[in-house]
């Protein structure tokens, strides 16, 4: 009875809600009957949303201050912002992706957030918590060059092997270009990306093996000297 649906639901009147509720009731009745026939118990926790089980509490303030290079008030400030955004204390990869989509509206943040997330989620739980967040921030903002470079190395090391392969570099660079999006000048072509990958890889690679080790990476970056110009002041 599609014409009925279309005529009734198109009219902006309250009775349509009654019809809708009648339909919902009949649907529920039929589902109930089918369940009774099949004798299946459907767990009813969908309404719950599973909120109570996944609440995450961070470590105490003092511990965090000890582990990171932030002061108490800074940690407080950061936590307040974090808690406001995620009341449950857990940030999933999807949530991170949504955030990055807002920050980079023209691009596709899928790859990049996947990379970021795998670095953030150190315990591979599927979500990262405030502890991870603040430790990462501490490293990135207040850490030494070595620490930062180590973090970057971990970011590039997709497979967690302890060394960067050409594929890893390709993946990372692709994620940057994805983040960029389509509407850029000049246009992004496959060859450009590949050429970029090759160039970087060749310049970092010191030995003849196909992988880059941590030390090489640190050497290269220190020589390149880009790091001096990037103090991140977030507070």
């Amino acid at each position, binding site marked *: *009875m599609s014409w009925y649906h279309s005529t*009734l639901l198109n009219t902006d009147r309250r009775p349509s809600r009654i019809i809708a509720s*009648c339909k919902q009731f009949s649907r529920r009745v039929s589902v109930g009957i089918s369940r009774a026939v099949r004798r299946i118990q459907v767990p009813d926790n969908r309404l719950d949303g599973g909120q109570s089980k996944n609440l995450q509490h961070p470590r105490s303030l003092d511990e965090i201050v000890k582990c990171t290079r932030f002061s108490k008030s800074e940690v407080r400030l950061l936590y307040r912002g974090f808690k406001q955004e995620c009341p449950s204390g857990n940030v999933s990869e999807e949530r991170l992706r949504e955030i990055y989509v807002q920050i980079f509206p023209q691009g596709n943040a899928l790859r990049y957030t996947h990379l970021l997330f795998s670095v953030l989620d150190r315990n591979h739980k599927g979500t990262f918590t405030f502890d991870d967040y603040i430790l990462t921030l501490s490293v990135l*903002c207040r850490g030494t060059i070595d620490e930062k470079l180590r*973090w*970057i190395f971990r970011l590039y090391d997709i497979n967690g092997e302890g060394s960067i392969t050409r594929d890893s570099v390709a993946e990372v660079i692709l994620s940057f270009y994805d983040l960029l999006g389509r509407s850029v000048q000049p246009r992004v072509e496959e060859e450009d990306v590949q050429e*970029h990958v090759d160039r970087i890889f060749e310049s970092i690679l010191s030995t003849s093996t196909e992988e880059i080790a941590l030390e090489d990476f640190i050497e290269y970056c220190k020589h*390149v000297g880009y*790091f001096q110009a*990037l103090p991140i002041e977030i507070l």
Partner: protein
Amino acid sequence: MASVAAWLPFARAAAIGWVPLAKNPLPPPPFRVPTSGASPSGNDRRCDEKIIINVSGRRFECWRSTLEKYPDSLLGSNEKEFFYDEDTREYFFDRDPDVFRVILNFYRTGKLHYPKHECIAAYDEELAFFGILPDIIGDCCYEDYRDRKRENNERLIDDRLHEDEDKAQPKPQSIRETMWRAFENPQVSTMASVFYYVTGFFIAVSVIANVLDTVSCGTDPETGYARTCGERFSRQFFCLDTACVMIFTVEYFLRLYAAPDRLKFIRSVMSVIDVVAIMPYYIGLFMHQKGEVSGAFVTLRVFRVFRIFKFSRHSQGLRVLGYTLKSCASELGFLLFSLTMAIIIFATVMYYAEKSVVHTKFTSIPAAFWYTIVTMTTLGYGDIVPKTWAGKIVGGVCSLSGVLVIALPVPVIVSNFSRIYHQSQRADKMKAQRKARQTRIRLARNATSNAFVAAKRRHEQYLDDPDIPVDKNIVNPFELQHHHLLRCLELTTDREFVEMGPDALMGGGANAVAGAHPTTGIARLGSPARQFILNRRKWWCCGDRMNNTNATTNEEELDEELGDFQLPLSLTPRASGSTGHIVNINTTNVIQHRPSSASVQHNVVLHSTISESSTNRFDLNVPFDTDDRILGRRKTNSLTPVQEQGSTNDLLNDDSHTTTIPTSHSDIIHRPTTDDKQTV
């Protein structure tokens, strides 16, 4: 977006991962100049300070950064500094704290909710005050908000329409209009109600006659068969019918004549019903004369029953029912469609199930329709029943499904009916209350403006005579300035403010009285209690005087003028005494004793502030009243103090010369105080 702001620092921190692979060196971050020392405005982000917002006594506290999430609203921008209270170091808003709670929650959570118990107008006002657009109301509350807003707007539009209707209904010009109004609203006049009830009565009579026409009334003496009353009393019934039809015809033609748009009237439903109600009679007359087909004639009498629909003009409930059915057309359509489908299905199945039975009543599928309909509506006459097992099962399923299918659209129709009925009820109620409401509103408006004028006057009294005990609490600085402003306006336009009576409001204000009639304002004064008078001092203003030449040529009015100016701020006296106002006569007597120099003084003073160009007008060496020549000269120097000070107080104090007037008029002339300092 709040979340972007919250996560941006992290994104920037993580961007360090781009550095090794970057093709070009990355630019340095925007470097914020560090503020030396603690800046109180909160630029120093290290300590995010708490802000206290005091809304009508309820204190809300939040971080400054919470508010700065939405910089284009009042709280997020510098606009809130206007509400900062230095002493208590908080921001004070004199608004509704309940709604503010919702608004502050918006800053905190990013979602604006609409509390269902709030009035939509109040809520909108608060949002507008705090600079928040209602478009960002969250999905959870948006529908509700929009529904209520729409209802409110409809109601306002409705009100306005009806107000316009009421106001813009001029007296009916012609007989046609009177008649049409009488037909549409029977309450308008007695004739209309009489007509209404008479037609209603005749409709009832006609319908009852129709019904009784067919009751059996005993046997026919000739043929021995039972006879209906219609046959027995055929002449009486015929007369009754004729009378009714005549009334209906007359009514129809009267309506047709009175209708403003005849074509539209002819096409309307009621008109069609009228026509169908009376046509059978005429057709019957015509055919009776011809003496032909009496079978068709009998059939036509069936249409007489349509007269009962004429009752819908008389009954609002019937109209509401009709309107409901019209508006529920789709639900009814669904009902019909589904019933038809079900009938066909079940009838077919029943037919084939019962085909094998001998002497079955299910002779064909259409024959089974009757069974299906009777079963689905749970009537179950029993004239046609299945005999086989299969038939009975099918019959059972048929009746069950019938119950369901019919029960579904019924609540929809019922709720539609109830909504329309309540709407019409509300419209009627509002119509009845509208007059009372508007009068109430007008009186309230009057009261406030009258109170204000009274307060102003009292304040001026107080300034004249500090001895008069006055409640100091009444006068506050804003009121003073408001009074002064009004006073300036008065002097600019050479008018004075007057307390308005209810009739004055109807007339559009008592201030602007046209014509050279200086006493028209007085006509409004019923009692000495009215202390202000309307006084159109047209003759003071040179321009007006010239314009007035055509009007004020006759002796009487000249007398008026001369007499008037002597006592401008009181009831203008009639030297000729032609008005017959008792109050006027009294003052006339008084005036002759009184030095009119005071009035000269006063008027001159007042006029001087208006236009310096018309100096000849108040050349004090040539006073208007010859008696006052000396006094006039003496008063020349009084101009200067006025011009020097130029304040309201001085102007008011100049009116003090009216002290010699006896106290019976002291309340008429509102400045009875002496002030000799001006005379020297």
